[in-house]
Each structure stands twice: as C-alpha cells, then as structure tokens.
C-alpha cells in the first residue's frame, strides 16, 4: 500500500462521501471513515479494492483530493466552502481543463501537456492566481493549488508532470458541469427578474 497511498486515500474519501448520509453523528462518521480505509485494503483478484477502482478511474489529481478532502472534513464540522469560494475554484479548474484536454488529445500540434514537464511558466501564472485567490479569501482554490504544487515539488505521485497534480478528467467534468449549471441558473434568474419587471 505504501507505494499507492494516494489511490487508497482517494478510495476511502470517495466511499465515505457516498455513504456519509447513512451516519447521524461525528462518531459514526469517524467509524465509517476508518472502515472505508480498511475496505480500501481488501484484496480482490490479487490487488486491493482501491487499486481495482484505480484501474477504472485512474489516479485522481491532488487538487481533486483536496476538494473531496475538504468535503470530508466539512462532515466533521469544518465549515464548507462558501458559494463565492466554490465558484472561484470551479472557474479555475474549468479553465485549466479547457486549456489542457482538447489539445492534449490531439486537436492541435501544440501539446499543452508538454508544458507540465517544464512547468516554470505555469508555476508563474498559477502562483499569481493563487495569490489572487488568497487575497480574495477563496481558500478552497488556493489550498488546492498550493497542495498540488507541493505534491509536485515533492513528486508524491507517479507522474513527472505538473498537470497530473492539478487536474484530472473527473475534476474537469465536474468543474465544467457545475459552472454551466451555475451559469444557467444565473441566466434564468436574470430572465425571470426582467420578465417580472416588464410585467
């Protein structure tokens, strides 16, 4: 497990978040989280359950782990991210997803994934963005950026590429989807307000 502690952590947090509605208090949630960690180690066909799941979902980025880690901690009393903070984080990761995936999957000759192997320009831009998030008190996005960058600096994952610590396809889909929903909701509210004014 020591070689693959990040997938085990991801498994435990994901299963915990799915099952946490079944619990009533912090003690029960603590027991559930410990149980999820133990479940992640359960061997199935030669590898642990967490690694079986990893086969199908791949490795989650550190930023994703920060988001689901924050969601987990909020079940233990830490205040959940505010709407403004959440929106800023979603916009950040949606922007990264749009920059990375279409071109990295072959849409252009330029491959932004290569930037992650020589990431000084990315570090400069994301460092400035992180400073903006801190000044705006968008803690979730700032924490995700700082911990992803720290994990990259320490090469905590198997990848040598900065992008793999920042984003994964699930975070990309979630960010884009949630942002679209938020945009749609905002548009509906504006339209209904205008209709009411006209009436």
């Amino acid at each position, binding site marked *: 497990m020591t070689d693959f502690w990040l997938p085990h952590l991801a498994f435990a947090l994901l299963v915990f978040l799915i099952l946490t509605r079944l619990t009533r208090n912090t003690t029960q949630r603590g027991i559930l989280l410990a149980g999820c960690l133990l479940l992640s180690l359960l061997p199935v066909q030669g590898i642990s359950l967490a690694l079986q799941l990893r086969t199908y979902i791949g490795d989650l980025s550190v930023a994703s782990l920060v988001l689901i880690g924050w969601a987990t901690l909020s079940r233990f009393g830490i205040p959940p991210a505010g709407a403004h903070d959440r929106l800023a984080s979603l916009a950040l990761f949606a922007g990264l997803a749009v920059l990375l995936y279409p071109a990295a*999957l072959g849409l252009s000759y330029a491959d932004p994934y290569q930037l992650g192997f020589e990431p000084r320009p990315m570090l400069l831009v994301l460092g400035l963005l992180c400073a903006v998030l801190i000044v705006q008190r968008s803690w979730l996005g700032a924490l995700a950026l700082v911990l992803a960058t720290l994990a990259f*600096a320490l090469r905590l994952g198997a990848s040598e590429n900065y992008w793999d610590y920042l984003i994964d396809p699930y975070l990309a889909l979630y960010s884009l989807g949630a942002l679209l929903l938020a945009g749609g909701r905002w548009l509906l509210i504006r339209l209904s307000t205008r209709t009411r004014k006209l009436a």
Partner: protein
Amino acid sequence: MTSTLKTCALLLGAATVFACAWFGAAPHALAPFASQLPAPADAPPAMAAHFASSDLEDFVHSASITGLPGGDLMAAWFAGTREGAADVQIRAARFDASSGQWSAERVLAGRESTQRAVGKHIRKLGNPVISLAPDNRLWLFYVSVSLGGWAGSAVNAMVSDDLGDTWSAPRQLVTSPFLNISTLVRAAPVFHADGSIGLPVYHEFLGKFPEYLHLSAAGEVLGKYRIGKGRDSLQPTVVALDERRAVALLRYAGEEHHRVLASYSEDAGRSWSYPQPVEPSNPNSSLAAVGRPDGSLLVAMNDLEDGRFRLTLYATDANLGNWRTLGEPDETPNPWGEPIPRDEFPAVVSEKYRASGGKPEQQARFLEQVTARMCSAEGCTFDYEYPYFTRDREGTYHLVYSWNDMFIKHLAFNEAWLSERRPHD
C-alpha cells in the same frame, strides 16, 4: 491588522511552495543524439537466418532485438493463444554469438506480475521494445491495457543492470493526462549524448498520431513531443541522421495516401515537420528503419497496397528521395499474395522453414500448427510483418519480424552483404 498579517503569512507560505517547485523544475534541453557507430572494418559478406523463438504452440508477434556486448543479442516479443488474449506474455531469448544459437525462451513479464507491480488490474499485454543503452543498462518497454482495447494502453518500463539476467519490477510511465491511457510503443529507441532515451511512441484514442517520448537515463519521463497530429499515422520509427537531425518514418492508417509518411526534426527531437508521404506503399503495416554509416537508411516494410505477404528491404538516402529495393527477405510464392492450394502448402512452407533455420525435429509439429493457423477453405496464406531493425556495436544489422505468426525470424547481415545486393529502383 491581524487579518492583513494572516494574509501576508499565507502569501509567503504559498510563495515558498511555488518557489520550491520552480527550483525543482529546471527546463531540460534535449542533448544531441549519441554519435553514430563508425563503419566496420572490411569483412567478407555474411548473412544468417534463424528463428529466435522456439515455442510452437503460441501466437507470436511484435518482436524487437538489441545487440549485447561481445556480439550476443537479446530479442523480446509477445506470445499467447492469440493477440490480445489474457495469457499473452512478454518473452525473450538470448543469442549466443559463440555457438550461433538462440537460447530457450523465458518469460520477462506477464499480466499478473505487471498488475502486482503497477497497482492496476491488467487485461492484456502488447508490444515490447528491448534496447541496450550506452551505459550498458538493458531496457524493456512494453504495452499493457487495463481498460478497453489498445486505446487503453500504457507503457511500462523494466531495466536490467546485468544484461538481462535479472530485471527490475515494471513501472508504469505516466505519459498522458487522460487517465494515463493511449500511449503505445513499437519501434527502437534512440539515445542522446547525455544518456537520455528518445522513445518513439504513438497515441491511439480519439486520434492516431506519433510522438517522441524523452526519458532520462534513469527512465524518468522528461518530455513528450508531438511528431504528427490527426487520425492516420502511428508507430514512428526514428533514425538519428546527425547530432541534431532525425527522421521519423510513420505507418499510415488513413484513406488518402497509402504510403509511408516521413517527418524530420532539426533540434534533436523537440519539434518535427509536418509528415509527408514518401515513395513506398504502406498497407497500414508496421515498418522498421536503421541508419547506415554513410548516412543513408535501411528500411524493412510490406511495400504493398494490401496484405503483408511480402517483406521488402529498401535502401534510401537521408532525404528519402531515392528508394532502391535490396531484395525480399520473405515473400509468398504467389506474387499477388493470393492463397496457394492446400496441397502445395506443406512443401512450400517446409522449404521456407528449413531455409529459416527451423529445427528438423520440430518440422512435423510445425507443419501441423502452421497449417491450422494459415490455411482456410480458400487456401493457405503467408504473413511476414512487424519488422524491427537494430545495428549492433560490431556493425552487423539484425532484422526480426513475425513469420506467419508462428516464429520470430531473425536475419543477421553485414555491410559487405548489403553491398553485394544489386539495388533496383
């Protein structure tokens, strides 16, 4: 005031983290290609044929070969009940230069050993590439699939510090941001002067395009550079032409050209020209190329519009403007590749088996197996495909390829033998 101090402290902490990452992420230039081997001393023409594999039961495919110090060789290929089967293993054999014989096969990697080491369920294994680095570390790269078909491939690396006696556990290279899927390997790596490794790879998911993966001498991924884009080129074979220039020949999988594509790099593999079709036909089949001491290239391929029933050896200049055939290492008796009658097949294939160095004591079993594999109600066909080239430190060329999916055939020849071949346009 406290809030401002807190913000300043957080900004300082974040800046420290980003600064640490900055200093640990120094940009790396691609070193020049390692110097080319000099022309060998005068030697009489020599050519030999062997089978590198010996198992008669399994489907064998996608061979690679590398020279070892002292004239020995090691070849690796995949073998199993069929391509893509769960029982496919990466197998290898060693050629002993003193006896002139290939050893028995051994298994280098299997599905379960790979699964244990990389921490993922593995469905199947695919193309292996074996290569001796200038520092005498022997590398094995091979494809594994956890999910779906070949589009779900990842590349694994193993290394041996004792020329193939013992091997490290496999490690999966992270080469793609999308679930680390869809990177495959097929052709020989090239080496840079600083010992780093240039591994030609290809992407096969939403598109099909070739890439140049740059690894450190320790096998860490340093970069990945796109050779082409789109949906119709794959399996690049890269030849260094001088310190900075290289050419990549590409298998063509589209509907427009039906020819080999070529792309050039002038900066040691960092950027590549737009792939253009060159003269020989390519029926969407794998090809192999190797550099010669005079700067020209030797290329093995199925120069056909359809099928893989003939393997042809070509010589071409570095500009790929003058292609000359040097003969056909293997071909079907029917020039159009049509099936031959079943009653003629045993005599024809047995003659080819003996000419390829097949063991007489295995001939009866071979005939039974090859008939079952290559014959149908319409007749019997031949397949000579997936060539792979290397040139060893003594200057001898080694070509391996799939021989009717029954054996891995090995041809060894020298420059003098090539000079004797009468080229024809």
